[in-house]
């Protein structure tokens, strides 16, 4: 990998570490805040819910820009695996939502959607990496 790519990697890891720390801080701070009896209310919970993911969104947006800026097969793998993960997650979420509504299946944890999306992304990335360059 070129020197420019190495510098980009270093910047990315610094940003990822900073944004993850900020995210953990916001989750902990938000949890503490909504648990205060004097400060509870739907608006506060909504604010915490909307503001807490911002560091992760910023990090993912930056990661997306870096990946799409790469002039190589990595950019293609990223685009294809992300779209595959999106459609797999959408299809599974829709199917499970319909089964939940009509067949009374139990409501799953929100973590499940995250795990499905990340799992599909990981599998698609590994498969495409193998398929395109092995």
């Amino acid at each position, binding site marked *: *990998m070129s020197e*420019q790519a190495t510098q980009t990697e270093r910047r990315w890891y610094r940003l990822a570490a900073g944004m993850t720390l900020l995210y953990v801080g916001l989750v902990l701070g938000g949890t503490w805040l909504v648990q205060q009896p004097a400060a509870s209310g739907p608006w506060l919970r909504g604010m915490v819910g909307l503001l807490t993911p911002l560091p992760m969104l910023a990090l993912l947006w930056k990661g997306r820009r870096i990946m799409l800026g790469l002039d190589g*097969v990595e950019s293609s793998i990223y685009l294809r695996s992300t779209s595959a993960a999106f459609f797999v997650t959408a299809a599974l979420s829709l199917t499970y939502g319909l089964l939940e509504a009509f067949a009374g299946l139990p409501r799953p944890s929100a973590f499940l959607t995250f795990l499905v999306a990340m799992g599909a992304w990981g599998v698609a990335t590994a498969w495409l990496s193998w398929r395109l360059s092995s």
Partner: protein
Amino acid sequence: MKNRVAELRRERGWTQRELGERLGVSRQTVIAIEKGRFDPSLPLAFRIARVFGAAIEELFQPDDESA
């Protein structure tokens, strides 16, 4: 898209990693191009042509076009 990247690289005795460093891309990208599984962008195709001192059309050829 067929290409002569692997052939020209071997003629010069370069490894895939060395070619990747000259082009500013990963070894994974070089492998994918050589195997014809990834078509490089136009700027990358120009860089490849410059590295080998050849014209783009000498390096890349559409699948449906015979030599």
